[in-house]
Protein backbone atom coordinates (compact mmCIF):
# COMPACT_ATOMS: atom_id res chain seq x y z
CA UNK A 1 0.00 0.00 0.00
CA UNK A 2 3.04 2.28 0.08
CA UNK A 3 2.50 5.29 -2.15
CA UNK A 4 -1.21 4.62 -2.60
CA UNK A 5 -4.09 6.78 -1.47
CA UNK A 6 -6.43 5.88 1.33
CA UNK A 7 -9.60 3.87 1.03
CA UNK A 8 -13.20 4.94 1.33
CA UNK A 9 -15.09 2.78 3.81
CA UNK A 10 -18.86 2.49 3.96
CA UNK A 11 -21.23 1.39 6.73
CA UNK A 12 -24.75 1.27 5.39
CA UNK A 13 -27.79 -0.65 4.33
CA UNK A 14 -27.70 -3.12 1.47
CA UNK A 15 -28.50 -0.62 -1.27
CA UNK A 16 -25.99 1.94 -0.07
CA UNK A 17 -23.14 -0.53 0.22
CA UNK A 18 -23.98 -2.24 -3.06
CA UNK A 19 -24.09 1.11 -4.81
CA UNK A 20 -20.76 2.32 -3.52
CA UNK A 21 -19.13 -1.03 -4.22
CA UNK A 22 -20.43 -0.69 -7.78
CA UNK A 23 -18.75 2.69 -7.76
CA UNK A 24 -15.46 0.94 -7.09
CA UNK A 25 -14.57 1.66 -3.47
CA UNK A 26 -14.56 -1.96 -2.26
CA UNK A 27 -11.47 -3.79 -1.13
CA UNK A 28 -11.42 -7.42 -0.10
CA UNK A 29 -8.94 -10.21 -0.54
CA UNK A 30 -8.01 -13.28 1.40
CA UNK A 31 -5.48 -11.43 3.52
CA UNK A 32 -7.30 -8.18 4.20
CA UNK A 33 -10.40 -7.08 5.96
CA UNK A 34 -13.31 -5.60 4.01
CA UNK A 35 -13.73 -1.85 4.07
CA UNK A 36 -17.51 -2.10 4.17
CA UNK A 37 -20.24 -3.31 6.48
CA UNK A 38 -23.78 -4.12 5.35
CA UNK A 39 -26.13 -3.31 8.20
CA UNK A 40 -29.11 -5.65 8.19
CA UNK A 41 -32.01 -6.16 10.55
CA UNK A 42 -30.04 -8.56 12.71
CA UNK A 43 -26.89 -6.45 12.84
CA UNK A 44 -26.29 -5.43 16.42
CA UNK A 45 -25.43 -1.92 17.55
CA UNK A 46 -22.29 -3.32 19.15
CA UNK A 47 -21.11 -4.67 15.85
CA UNK A 48 -21.68 -1.33 14.13
CA UNK A 49 -19.94 0.50 16.93
CA UNK A 50 -16.99 -1.87 16.97
CA UNK A 51 -16.61 -1.61 13.20
CA UNK A 52 -16.79 2.17 13.26
CA UNK A 53 -14.40 2.53 16.17
CA UNK A 54 -11.97 0.12 14.61
CA UNK A 55 -12.13 2.02 11.32
CA UNK A 56 -11.68 5.33 13.07
CA UNK A 57 -9.12 4.40 15.69
CA UNK A 58 -6.93 2.12 13.67
CA UNK A 59 -6.81 4.44 10.74
CA UNK A 60 -4.69 6.74 12.89
CA UNK A 61 -2.31 3.89 13.64
CA UNK A 62 -3.52 3.36 17.17
CA UNK A 63 -3.63 -0.13 18.55
CA UNK A 64 -6.83 -0.32 20.50
CA UNK A 65 -8.19 -3.44 22.02
CA UNK A 66 -11.89 -3.94 21.80
CA UNK A 67 -12.80 -5.76 24.97
CA UNK A 68 -16.44 -6.00 24.00
CA UNK A 69 -15.78 -7.85 20.81
CA UNK A 70 -15.16 -11.33 22.09
CA UNK A 71 -18.57 -12.74 21.33
CA UNK A 72 -17.80 -16.13 19.75
CA UNK A 73 -20.92 -15.96 17.66
CA UNK A 74 -19.97 -12.57 16.31
CA UNK A 75 -16.44 -13.73 15.55
CA UNK A 76 -17.68 -16.81 13.80
CA UNK A 77 -20.20 -14.90 11.71
CA UNK A 78 -18.06 -11.86 10.99
CA UNK A 79 -14.40 -12.78 11.51
CA UNK A 80 -13.15 -9.81 9.55
CA UNK A 81 -15.08 -7.03 11.28
CA UNK A 82 -12.30 -5.99 13.61
CA UNK A 83 -10.52 -3.70 11.12
CA UNK A 84 -7.45 -4.09 13.29
CA UNK A 85 -4.34 -2.09 12.53
CA UNK A 86 -5.84 -0.34 9.55
CA UNK A 87 -4.20 2.93 8.71
CA UNK A 88 -5.42 3.10 5.16
CA UNK A 89 -8.91 4.54 5.43
CA UNK A 90 -9.43 8.21 4.60
CA UNK A 91 -13.22 8.53 4.53
CA UNK A 92 -15.99 6.66 6.31
CA UNK A 93 -19.45 6.93 4.76
CA UNK A 94 -22.29 6.02 7.07
CA UNK A 95 -26.06 6.17 6.66
CA UNK A 96 -27.50 8.82 8.92
CA UNK A 97 -29.96 6.49 10.66
CA UNK A 98 -27.05 4.15 11.48
CA UNK A 99 -25.00 7.10 12.65
CA UNK A 100 -27.79 7.91 15.09
CA UNK A 101 -27.38 4.44 16.64
CA UNK A 102 -23.71 5.12 17.33
CA UNK A 103 -23.90 8.90 17.76
CA UNK A 104 -21.77 8.78 20.90
CA UNK A 105 -18.98 7.04 19.00
CA UNK A 106 -19.19 9.57 16.17
CA UNK A 107 -19.10 12.51 18.56
CA UNK A 108 -16.05 11.01 20.27
CA UNK A 109 -14.21 10.88 16.96
CA UNK A 110 -12.38 14.18 16.78
CA UNK A 111 -9.62 13.46 14.27
CA UNK A 112 -9.75 14.86 10.78
CA UNK A 113 -8.66 11.55 9.25
CA UNK A 114 -10.62 9.47 8.61
CA UNK A 115 -13.33 11.97 7.77
CA UNK A 116 -16.85 10.82 8.57
CA UNK A 117 -19.66 11.74 6.23
CA UNK A 118 -23.30 10.98 6.96
CA UNK A 119 -25.44 10.16 3.98
CA UNK A 120 -29.15 9.48 3.72
CA UNK A 121 -30.57 6.03 3.24
CA UNK A 122 -33.35 4.85 0.98
CA UNK A 123 -35.87 4.59 3.79
CA UNK A 124 -34.64 7.45 5.97
CA UNK A 125 -34.34 10.81 4.22
CA UNK A 126 -31.53 13.15 5.16
CA UNK A 127 -32.19 15.29 8.22
CA UNK A 128 -29.90 18.29 8.39
CA UNK A 129 -30.68 18.79 12.05
CA UNK A 130 -28.93 15.51 12.89
CA UNK A 131 -25.82 16.03 10.80
CA UNK A 132 -22.72 16.34 12.99
CA UNK A 133 -21.24 19.15 10.90
CA UNK A 134 -24.37 21.27 10.95
CA UNK A 135 -25.06 20.59 14.59
CA UNK A 136 -21.67 21.98 15.47
CA UNK A 137 -22.23 25.04 13.34
CA UNK A 138 -25.65 25.56 14.87
CA UNK A 139 -24.00 25.42 18.28
CA UNK A 140 -22.29 28.69 17.51
CA UNK A 141 -25.60 30.43 17.94
CA UNK A 142 -26.42 29.03 21.36
CA UNK A 143 -25.28 30.28 24.75
CA UNK A 144 -24.07 26.84 25.82
CA UNK A 145 -20.91 27.12 23.78
CA UNK A 146 -19.90 30.25 25.68
CA UNK A 147 -19.76 28.51 29.02
Amino acid sequence: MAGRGKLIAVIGDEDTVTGFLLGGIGELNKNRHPNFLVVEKDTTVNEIEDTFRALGAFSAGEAEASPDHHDPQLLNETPNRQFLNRDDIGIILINQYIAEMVRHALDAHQRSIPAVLEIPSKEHPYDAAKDSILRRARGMFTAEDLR
Partner: protein
Amino acid sequence: MAAADLRAELDSLLLQLLWDLEELESKRVALNARVEEGWLSLSKARYAMGAKSVGPLQYASRMEPQVCVCTSEAQNGLQKFRVVRAGAQSPEEVGPREAALRRRKGLTRIPEPEVFSASPNPLNWFGILVPHSLRQAQASFQEETLKLQMVLEMKPQMEATDSFFLGLLVAHL
Protein backbone atom coordinates in the same frame (compact mmCIF):
# COMPACT_ATOMS: atom_id res chain seq x y z
CA MET B 1 -11.82 51.56 18.46
CA ALA B 2 -10.57 48.11 19.39
CA ALA B 3 -14.10 47.11 20.33
CA ALA B 4 -15.41 48.31 16.99
CA ASP B 5 -12.70 46.32 15.19
CA LEU B 6 -13.56 43.27 17.25
CA ARG B 7 -17.24 43.59 16.41
CA ALA B 8 -16.41 44.01 12.74
CA GLU B 9 -14.21 40.94 12.81
CA LEU B 10 -16.82 38.87 14.61
CA ASP B 11 -19.44 39.95 12.10
CA SER B 12 -17.12 39.02 9.27
CA LEU B 13 -16.50 35.58 10.73
CA LEU B 14 -20.19 35.04 11.28
CA LEU B 15 -20.97 36.03 7.71
CA GLN B 16 -18.25 33.67 6.49
CA LEU B 17 -19.75 30.85 8.49
CA LEU B 18 -23.24 31.52 7.19
CA TRP B 19 -21.87 31.60 3.67
CA ASP B 20 -20.11 28.29 4.27
CA LEU B 21 -23.32 26.83 5.65
CA GLU B 22 -25.22 27.83 2.55
CA GLU B 23 -22.52 26.38 0.33
CA LEU B 24 -22.44 23.16 2.34
CA GLU B 25 -26.21 22.85 2.08
CA SER B 26 -26.17 23.23 -1.70
CA LYS B 27 -23.41 20.64 -2.03
CA ARG B 28 -25.31 18.33 0.27
CA VAL B 29 -28.44 18.63 -1.85
CA ALA B 30 -26.44 17.73 -4.97
CA LEU B 31 -24.79 14.80 -3.22
CA ASN B 32 -28.06 13.45 -1.86
CA ALA B 33 -29.78 13.83 -5.22
CA ARG B 34 -27.09 11.76 -6.90
CA VAL B 35 -27.26 8.94 -4.38
CA GLU B 36 -31.04 8.88 -4.67
CA GLU B 37 -30.69 8.51 -8.43
CA GLY B 38 -28.38 5.60 -7.78
CA TRP B 39 -30.91 3.89 -5.52
CA LEU B 40 -33.66 4.34 -8.07
CA SER B 41 -31.48 2.79 -10.76
CA LEU B 42 -30.58 -0.08 -8.42
CA SER B 43 -34.29 -0.69 -7.80
CA LYS B 44 -34.95 -0.76 -11.53
CA ALA B 45 -32.09 -3.21 -12.00
CA ARG B 46 -33.45 -5.38 -9.22
CA TYR B 47 -36.88 -5.34 -10.87
CA ALA B 48 -35.32 -6.44 -14.16
CA MET B 49 -32.95 -9.05 -12.80
CA GLY B 50 -34.79 -10.36 -9.76
CA ALA B 51 -34.98 -9.31 -6.13
CA LYS B 52 -32.01 -11.39 -5.02
CA SER B 53 -29.87 -10.71 -8.06
CA VAL B 54 -28.50 -7.36 -6.93
CA GLY B 55 -27.13 -7.60 -3.45
CA PRO B 56 -24.44 -8.96 -1.15
CA LEU B 57 -24.81 -12.48 -2.57
CA GLN B 58 -23.21 -11.24 -5.78
CA TYR B 59 -20.24 -9.50 -4.16
CA ALA B 60 -16.91 -10.83 -5.38
CA SER B 61 -14.69 -12.73 -2.99
CA ARG B 62 -11.81 -10.52 -4.01
CA MET B 63 -12.09 -6.82 -4.68
CA GLU B 64 -9.60 -4.20 -5.63
CA PRO B 65 -10.48 -0.56 -5.07
CA GLN B 66 -10.83 1.57 -8.15
CA VAL B 67 -11.11 4.77 -6.15
CA CYS B 68 -8.89 6.16 -3.46
CA VAL B 69 -8.69 9.42 -1.56
CA CYS B 70 -5.51 11.41 -1.23
CA THR B 71 -5.25 13.60 1.83
CA SER B 72 -2.95 16.53 2.32
CA GLU B 73 -2.61 19.49 4.58
CA ALA B 74 -2.98 22.94 3.10
CA GLN B 75 -0.81 25.87 4.14
CA ASN B 76 -3.50 27.07 6.53
CA GLY B 77 -3.45 23.68 8.26
CA LEU B 78 -6.79 22.51 6.90
CA GLN B 79 -7.17 19.02 5.49
CA LYS B 80 -7.68 18.70 1.78
CA PHE B 81 -9.16 15.67 0.11
CA ARG B 82 -8.81 14.53 -3.45
CA VAL B 83 -10.71 11.54 -4.74
CA VAL B 84 -8.77 9.75 -7.45
CA ARG B 85 -10.16 7.16 -9.81
CA ALA B 86 -8.06 4.41 -11.39
CA GLY B 87 -6.72 5.40 -14.75
CA ALA B 88 -6.71 9.08 -13.95
CA GLN B 89 -3.40 10.65 -14.91
CA SER B 90 -2.03 13.97 -13.87
CA PRO B 91 -0.77 16.16 -16.74
CA GLU B 92 2.83 15.65 -15.67
CA GLU B 93 2.60 11.92 -16.24
CA VAL B 94 1.57 12.16 -19.87
CA GLY B 95 4.37 11.80 -22.41
CA PRO B 96 7.54 9.75 -22.81
CA ARG B 97 9.05 8.64 -19.58
CA GLU B 98 12.62 8.45 -20.80
CA ALA B 99 14.65 10.90 -22.77
CA ALA B 100 16.64 8.21 -24.56
CA LEU B 101 16.17 7.59 -28.25
CA ARG B 102 13.72 4.88 -29.03
CA ARG B 103 15.04 1.80 -30.74
CA ARG B 104 13.38 0.36 -33.78
CA LYS B 105 13.48 -3.10 -32.39
CA GLY B 106 11.95 -4.07 -29.09
CA LEU B 107 11.47 -0.83 -27.30
CA THR B 108 12.37 -1.45 -23.70
CA ARG B 109 9.43 -0.46 -21.60
CA ILE B 110 9.89 0.58 -18.02
CA PRO B 111 6.98 -0.72 -15.98
CA GLU B 112 4.89 2.27 -15.07
CA PRO B 113 3.89 2.62 -11.46
CA GLU B 114 0.18 2.31 -11.19
CA VAL B 115 -2.04 3.58 -8.47
CA PHE B 116 -4.17 0.48 -8.74
CA SER B 117 -3.72 -2.94 -10.18
CA ALA B 118 -6.01 -3.82 -13.05
CA SER B 119 -9.26 -4.62 -11.32
CA PRO B 120 -12.36 -6.03 -12.96
CA ASN B 121 -15.42 -3.90 -13.30
CA PRO B 122 -17.78 -4.52 -10.36
CA LEU B 123 -20.59 -4.76 -12.92
CA ASN B 124 -19.20 -8.17 -13.83
CA TRP B 125 -20.25 -9.51 -10.42
CA PHE B 126 -23.86 -9.35 -11.60
CA GLY B 127 -23.46 -11.15 -14.89
CA ILE B 128 -22.16 -10.67 -18.39
CA LEU B 129 -25.14 -8.79 -19.76
CA VAL B 130 -26.47 -6.40 -17.17
CA PRO B 131 -29.41 -4.06 -17.67
CA HIS B 132 -28.79 -0.44 -18.50
CA SER B 133 -30.25 0.60 -15.15
CA LEU B 134 -27.39 -1.14 -13.33
CA ARG B 135 -24.86 0.77 -15.44
CA GLN B 136 -26.72 3.96 -14.61
CA ALA B 137 -26.54 3.09 -10.93
CA GLN B 138 -22.81 2.58 -11.23
CA ALA B 139 -22.39 5.92 -12.97
CA SER B 140 -24.41 7.66 -10.26
CA PHE B 141 -22.33 6.22 -7.46
CA GLN B 142 -19.08 6.87 -9.29
CA GLU B 143 -20.05 10.49 -9.64
CA GLU B 144 -21.11 10.50 -6.00
CA THR B 145 -17.66 9.40 -4.85
CA LEU B 146 -16.05 12.17 -6.85
CA LYS B 147 -18.32 14.77 -5.23
CA LEU B 148 -17.48 13.63 -1.69
CA GLN B 149 -14.38 15.78 -1.48
CA MET B 150 -16.40 18.95 -2.01
CA VAL B 151 -18.50 18.30 1.08
CA LEU B 152 -15.63 16.98 3.18
CA GLU B 153 -13.49 20.04 2.67
CA MET B 154 -16.21 22.24 4.11
CA LYS B 155 -16.03 20.62 7.52
CA PRO B 156 -12.49 21.62 8.58
CA GLN B 157 -13.03 25.04 7.06
CA MET B 158 -16.16 25.60 9.12
CA GLU B 159 -14.58 24.17 12.25
CA ALA B 160 -11.66 26.57 11.87
CA THR B 161 -13.99 29.54 11.46
CA ASP B 162 -16.07 28.34 14.39
CA SER B 163 -13.05 27.94 16.67
CA PHE B 164 -11.65 31.33 15.71
CA PHE B 165 -15.00 32.99 16.27
CA LEU B 166 -15.51 31.44 19.68
CA GLY B 167 -11.94 32.13 20.65
CA LEU B 168 -12.33 35.83 19.84
CA LEU B 169 -15.66 36.02 21.60
CA VAL B 170 -14.51 34.34 24.77
CA ALA B 171 -11.25 36.28 24.93
CA HIS B 172 -13.00 39.61 24.85
CA LEU B 173 -16.00 38.95 27.04
